């Protein structure tokens, strides 16, 4: 049985390198055989205090395929939360109804707090701009799946590197695997110095660019993110840089044949649709991998693997 039984997953740093790998190995088994009704005696609560399409459906699909019953809400409207119930009281109550809580809440740190109040394990499905560890786990799964390894890779991160929480978590996680980071962003959206410091502390290297073309021949993975208009105080500044981080099919000429393009989705225009038809596009498979990884996490945490 997994050492992850009974554990919470709140932040990507909660698990060791060995534990990430364990989850990825279990997820591979679910990819081979997704319908294993090993949680048929369990109840999973999905508490979504703000709307989410992909993450909630992915968790619920994963729980369903494992045979678990699902309770919860996809929007706090109509629940006791709207009547002013505290997160504390909601979590204490739900703990007595479910074997596992999956929670998304816009308040940063809310999942850590919920895990301290709950009497059952908690998986963080996103706490504001803070952490979204299952996204990071599925990114790792997709990288390993496409490259055959997580070690010694050239990882290019493109777009909003300043505010993108998936980017920060991925950097933290890949620091365990001797990665080299290639950072492509407008000057205003560079990776924060605290995240760069964690690369340096791990004894690894990063290089910064403003043009995607520079990194195409080097990259094993191009991880695209959306540059959001609302991040720019000056709309003119947004107009000036918005097209600098768009990936088109013709830009991929000269890339490694094994290179794959990842994106946490939803995409807007930062990957043009002509990339979808190339063998390098992996973002839709990446989203599908989220189900296997979430199956693996739920099964391991509930002691079924």
């Amino acid at each position, binding site marked *: 049985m997994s050492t992850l039984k009974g554990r919470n997953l709140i*932040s990507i740093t909660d698990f060791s390198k060995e534990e990430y790998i364990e989850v990825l190995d279990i997820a591979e088994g679910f990819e081979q055989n997704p319908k294993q009704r090993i949680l048929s005696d369990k109840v999973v609560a999905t508490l979504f205090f703000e709307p989410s399409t992909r993450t909630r459906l992915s968790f619920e699909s994963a729980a369903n395929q494992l045979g678990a019953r699902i309770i919860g809400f996809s929007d706090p409207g109509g629940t006791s939360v709207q009547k002013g119930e*505290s*997160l*504390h009281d909601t979590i204490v109550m739900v703990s007595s109804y479910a074997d596992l809580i999956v929670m998304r*809440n*816009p*308040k*940063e*740190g*809310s999942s*850590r*707090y919920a895990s301290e109040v709950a009497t059952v394990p908690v998986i963080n499905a996103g*706490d*504001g*701009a*803070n*952490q979204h560890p299952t996204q990071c786990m599925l990114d790792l799964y997709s990288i390993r799946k496409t490259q055959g390894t997580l070690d010694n890779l050239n990882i290019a991160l493109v777009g909003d590197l300043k505010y993108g929480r998936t980017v920060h978590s991925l950097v933290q996680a890949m620091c365990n695997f001797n990665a080299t980071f290639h950072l492509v962003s407008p000057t205003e959206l560079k990776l924060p110095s*605290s995240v760069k410091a964690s690369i340096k502390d791990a004894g690894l290297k990063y290089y910064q660019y403003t043009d995607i073309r520079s990194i195409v021949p080097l990259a094993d993975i191009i991880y695209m993110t959306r540059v959001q208009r609302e991040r720019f105080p000056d709309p003119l500044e947004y107009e000036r840089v918005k097209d600098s981080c768009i990936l088109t099919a013709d830009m991929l000429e000269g890339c490694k044949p094994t290179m794959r393009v990842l994106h946490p989705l939803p995409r807007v225009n930062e990957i043009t649709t002509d990339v979808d038809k190339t063998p390098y596009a992996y973002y839709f498979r990446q989203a599908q991998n989220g189900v296997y990884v979430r199956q693996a996490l739920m099964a391991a945490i509930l002691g079924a693997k």
Partner: protein
Amino acid sequence: METKKELVVPAIENGTVIDHIPTELVYQVIHILGLENYKDEVLIGNYLKSGKLGRKGIIKIKNKHFTKEDVSKVALVAPFVTIITIQDYQVKEKFATEIPDHIENFVICANPKCITNAEAVPTKFDVVDKDNLKLRCHYCEKFTTKETIHFKL
């Protein structure tokens, strides 16, 4: 050296003395400890001659015995002051403050989106840089620094 004869701020029989306070921080120390509302004698001296600092502040608080949290509060506002416990006019204990590794309850997280600012959740921080005073919130993982620190009073 102070001697009993030269005391500018009178001695107290029992309580706590905070000595060697940088002059500009004396009122912040009073504030962080909530001494404005303390219902016993508080003796305050500032701009007193000091061999160590040139000029210093001193606060003597009658019948108050510091908790660990009080010491942490003083350390955050004024690191490296001296805290002296007095019993029967004698020094019972004397130590220099030091910023602790962990802080609970009395610092407010600087991140307005943190759960601790939305619900009645006691704050917890790890001190990641004592020289530049940088605290990492246990919940939202964001940093509170010297420039953004506020206290629950």
